[in-house]
């Protein structure tokens, strides 16, 4: 039921919404989240490279999608995650969930992105304006936000 894609190419949020809705007749609401390469003025980045573990990535995301489908009353969902070198403002990830009612659609959207952040094998490397590069460290907050779904 869920669509999972891991790809270097960009995606079209509008086309993904249309495709999800077409697969989910009876849906009353679609929630979504789009992650974007962020550059703050204080520490501007030139580019971000996403490394992943190809043999594991799709299976790990499919397992997260399966958990969301079990937990929420979903009619369909889509997860697209890019890898490779991206520039500030580029889309990184797309998550969308369709359900009969808005609460399930929005909660499933939060669940999917929170779990992707902590359970999908991606690593971000930032290239700074001064020529240096650094691997982004996992935020303790990400683990906390994923953990709150274990308390339900």
């Amino acid at each position, binding site marked *: 039921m869920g669509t999972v894609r891991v790809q270097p190419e960009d995606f079209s949020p509008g086309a993904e919404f249309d495709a999800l809705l077409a697969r989910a007749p009876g849906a009353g609401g679609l929630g979504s989240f789009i992650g974007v390469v962020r550059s703050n003025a204080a520490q501007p980045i030139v580019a971000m490279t996403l*490394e992943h*573990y190809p043999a594991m990535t799709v299976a*790990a995301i499919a397992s997260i999608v399966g958990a969301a489908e079990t937990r929420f009353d979903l009619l369909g969902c889509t997860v697209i995650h890019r890898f490779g070198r991206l520039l500030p403002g580029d889309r990184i990830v797309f998550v969308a969930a369709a359900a009969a009612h808005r609460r399930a659609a929005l909660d499933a959207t939060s669940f999917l992105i929170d779990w*992707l*952040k902590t*359970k999908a094998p991606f*690593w971000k490397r930032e290239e700074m304006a001064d020529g240096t590069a650094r691997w982004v*460290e*996992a935020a303790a907050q990400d683990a906390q936000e994923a953990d709150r779904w274990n308390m339900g």
Partner: protein
Amino acid sequence: MAEVRILYFAWLRERAGRGEEALTLPPDVATVGALMDWLGRRDPALAEAFAMRRVVRAAVNQNFASAETPVAAGDEVAFFPPVTGG
């Protein structure tokens, strides 16, 4: 004859100076934890990286694993930092 495939990602790959290798394990190396100790004894760069055990994660056959997870012939074992996708 326990041949396993080892993968390294992100800064662990850079520290190891390689993304993957195939190794034949001695009979007493049968868990992820024992494998990390053994790899560290063979390669100081890995020993240094694995010393930060709190921030090293592992997967066996593409499933997240702990130090106690068994490792057997034919397995694919990956080492990496905490994930930062999304």
